[in-house]
């Protein structure tokens, strides 16, 4: 039902690609992160709540949308999109042909984050799952605990008159962290890459605390009190001032490992990911009731062997998705092949 082509995953019977990285006629986009949503297709189809964000990322393209759960016949197959819980508008792609059902997970997490529609398991015969954090060392704390850690870090920054600067993806993680912040009315500044996406969330009805642009002036005016959200690549930008006046944090699943935290050269690492952790991956795959598992991008090898040992057939799909970049932000498009995908 799906094959890998030079442009990415392709459905011959439906004549469409899923998250293609090369030329395509119709591209079904699971979510608007840069490694999944690229220019090069003639037409795009994505889930309703994600349409405006995709339009923001892929300016000038023809983008249609489907409501979650709404079916549409495309060529010889029927397609529907289902919440993946990754970011606002993220979807799993369900493809049905003559009673056989395949689901492509896109990126997903299983914990409800209060910002986007939570992950909904879809029964299928074959489930093609991402594997970004496919090792049992990756296990997440409940969101409320991480929220507590971030807020107490901000509090201690204010007590020491330091600006708290957190590196996050501009789409998804930024809004998720924003929804967690409780700073007794201390100002929250958002970087220029983050601000428009925050507005798109507000327009979609997501309740977020008030924010100000992270300009040089605002950073100076609220120095020692503000919380700044910026993509990791922008951490050294004007808002960051001198190292003595700020504390740098990163929020990413990779922060679970000491070596990665240290290598990032930051003051604080928060283990917070929009991907499923190891127990989440196993639970999500199990919940589909699938008879075969497809595996793609991330720690593919451990999951493949895990299912091999359990007699579950597996197929590995080579893709160019990066999952979550080790530095916390694969926003820039083409990146290295992820570990385990070689």
């Amino acid at each position: 039902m799906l094959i890998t082509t030079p442009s990415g995953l392709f459905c011959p019977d439906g004549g469409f690609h899923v998250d293609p990285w090369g030329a395509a006629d119709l591209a079904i986009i699971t979510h608007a992160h840069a490694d999944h949503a690229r220019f090069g297709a003639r037409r795009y189809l994505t889930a309703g709540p994600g349409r405006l964000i995709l339009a923001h990322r892929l300016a000038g393209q023809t983008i249609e949308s489907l409501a979650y759960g709404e079916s549409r016949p495309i060529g010889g197959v029927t397609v529907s999109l289902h919440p993946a819980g990754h970011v606002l508008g993220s979807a799993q792609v369900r493809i049905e042909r003559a009673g056989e059902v395949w689901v492509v997970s896109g990126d997903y997490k299983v914990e409800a984050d209060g910002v986007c529609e939570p992950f909904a398991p879809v029964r299928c015969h074959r489930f093609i799952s991402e594997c970004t954090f496919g090792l049992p060392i990756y296990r997440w704390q409940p969101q409320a605990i991480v929220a507590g850690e971030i807020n107490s870090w901000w509090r201690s920054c204010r007590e020491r008159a330091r600006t708290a600067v957190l590196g996050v993806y501009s789409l998804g993680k930024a809004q998720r962290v924003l929804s967690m912040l409780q700073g007794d009315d201390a100002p929250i500044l958002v970087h220029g890459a983050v601000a428009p996406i925050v507005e798109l969330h507000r327009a979609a009805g997501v309740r977020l605390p008030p924010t100000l642009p992270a300009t040089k002036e605002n950073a100076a005016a609220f120095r020692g009190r503000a919380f700044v959200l910026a993509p990791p690549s922008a951490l050294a930008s004007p808002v960051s001032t001198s190292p003595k006046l700020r504390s740098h944090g990163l929020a990413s699943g990779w922060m679970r490992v000491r070596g990665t935290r240290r290598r990032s050269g930051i003051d604080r690492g928060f283990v917070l990911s929009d991907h499923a952790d190891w127990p989440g991956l196993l639970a999500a795959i199990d919940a589909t009731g699938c008879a075969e598992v497809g595996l793609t991008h991330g720690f593919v090898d451990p999951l493949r062997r895990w299912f091999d040992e359990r007699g579950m057939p597996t197929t590995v799909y080579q893709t160019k998705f990066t999952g979550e970049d080790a530095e916390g932000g694969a926003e820039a498009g083409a990146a290295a092949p992820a570990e385990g995908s070689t």
Partner: protein
Amino acid sequence: MKAFARLCIELGTTRSTATKVAQLVDYFRAAPAEDAALALSFFLGRRLKRAVTTTELRRWVAEAGGLPSWLIDMSYESVGDLGETLALLLPDTARIPNDSDEPMASLAVVVRDGILPLAAAPPARRKAIVFAWWNRFDSDERFVYHKLIGGSFRIGVSSGLVLRAIAALTGVDLAIVTHRLSGPFDPTPESWERLLRGESPDDAPGCLYPFCLASSLEVPPADFDRMLGPVAAWQIERKYDGIRGQLLHRGATTAVWSRGEERIDGSFPELRDLARQLPDGTVLDGEVLLVIGDTIGSFAKLQTRINAKRSAVDAGPGLFDIERAVFFAYDVLEDDGVDIRGLPLQERRGRLERIVSSVDDPMLRLSPVLRPARWEDAAAERAQSRALGVEGLMLKRLDAPYGIGRQRGRTELAIASWLKWKIDPFSIDAVVIAAEAGHGRRANLLTDYTFGLWRGEELITIAKAYSGLTDEEIAMVDRQLRGTTHTKRGPVRFVDPTLVFELGFEGLQRSKRHKSGIALRFPRILRWRTDKKPADADSLSTLEALLAQTYG
């Protein structure tokens, strides 16, 4: 234990040394004396005996987490630190956030009840103890616990930073703190409190002085006159390739200390006898060298000797008779029981010469002083180094006191009082043929490379070296190596030859253990030769030619 574990995690993730010192001070200030004493001893390098093997620990974690052993191996490969991997794999017992530093058990209690009893306990009991403590610990505590019971406690903090923290905490001068803690520290609350009160431990007559360490001379020869002043202001000696040591005689105590602050009397009984001949209340700084006839033996021979220990002595004549250790003295730190490190070198040298001549033993020699008239003459002396089997020259300012630790100039123009002017290392261009991920900070990234040189059409392994590259270069190299891997064997990736690096090394010798027949000493990466293709790399015959020119 919670506070100690948190400190270890913070020290291991911060790069700022000032922050590390502040974190240490905070910990030591708040910790109960028995914990502080233990923590200090661990930070100063005390190792508990390994009480649990890593095999056992892996098996127990597999059992507790319901994980197959291959998955533990894959996780370890990714994390790069076994104690941390196992801590991350253990299932949480309770998910109750506990922000208070109120320790469930103090470090001292953990050591007393959770670590020390392990060694003598039968396997089933050992397992029960470990499981019980796992259940009381959070992930950070488990990590530190694994380090302690595995006998491999090493956290990202140097003893220098720990000493700075103690100096800041007690208000005692760093030099004095360093001296007081240079012997073994007895981890009891009493010694901790004595340290806090700033009292000198009078129970350590074998205590050494912190070594003055030289900085590399990074001034171009053309600027010597301007930057260093006249050559006559400096004492110039050869830089020996031996073991830096202190020879000490105080009352009934004699000791031979190595630069690593270890007693090496056992390996060099003749030096201990030599120390006894020194006048009472003398501490000398110098170099331990092996001499065969009139020739100085190589460092490799010294290493054999260190490993030989006493058994060889008892075995009768042999190693210890043919090759005699000698002590090349170059400084005196204590004379007639008085610390004279504050005197200028010129004056110390005079006293040293008197001491050496009074002892009158061929095993105690003065490190000869070279007297070049101009810097050009000094350079000519340096050029003799390789032929003489020495590493270059040492320059020591005649009017300077004996410094503590690494001597660094504070500004560009300030020059340290001890400088090493080493000869340029040998270098070759070699090809990367295999790579492994690093550990700790570099876990996940391929940073340990195996290099080969050409022999005909084949690349023969010549050395392994850790990356000496910038983080950016490492990331690029990592990407390229992953893309050119042709075989994976465990953690090792064998790659197609695409990358050429210039390797530096200090020396080379024949070796039966290596396929190439040659072992390099201190191989390291000098730079990435992006301008060279693998075919342009050196061949083994280059090394053969170097070997022929070098002294045995």
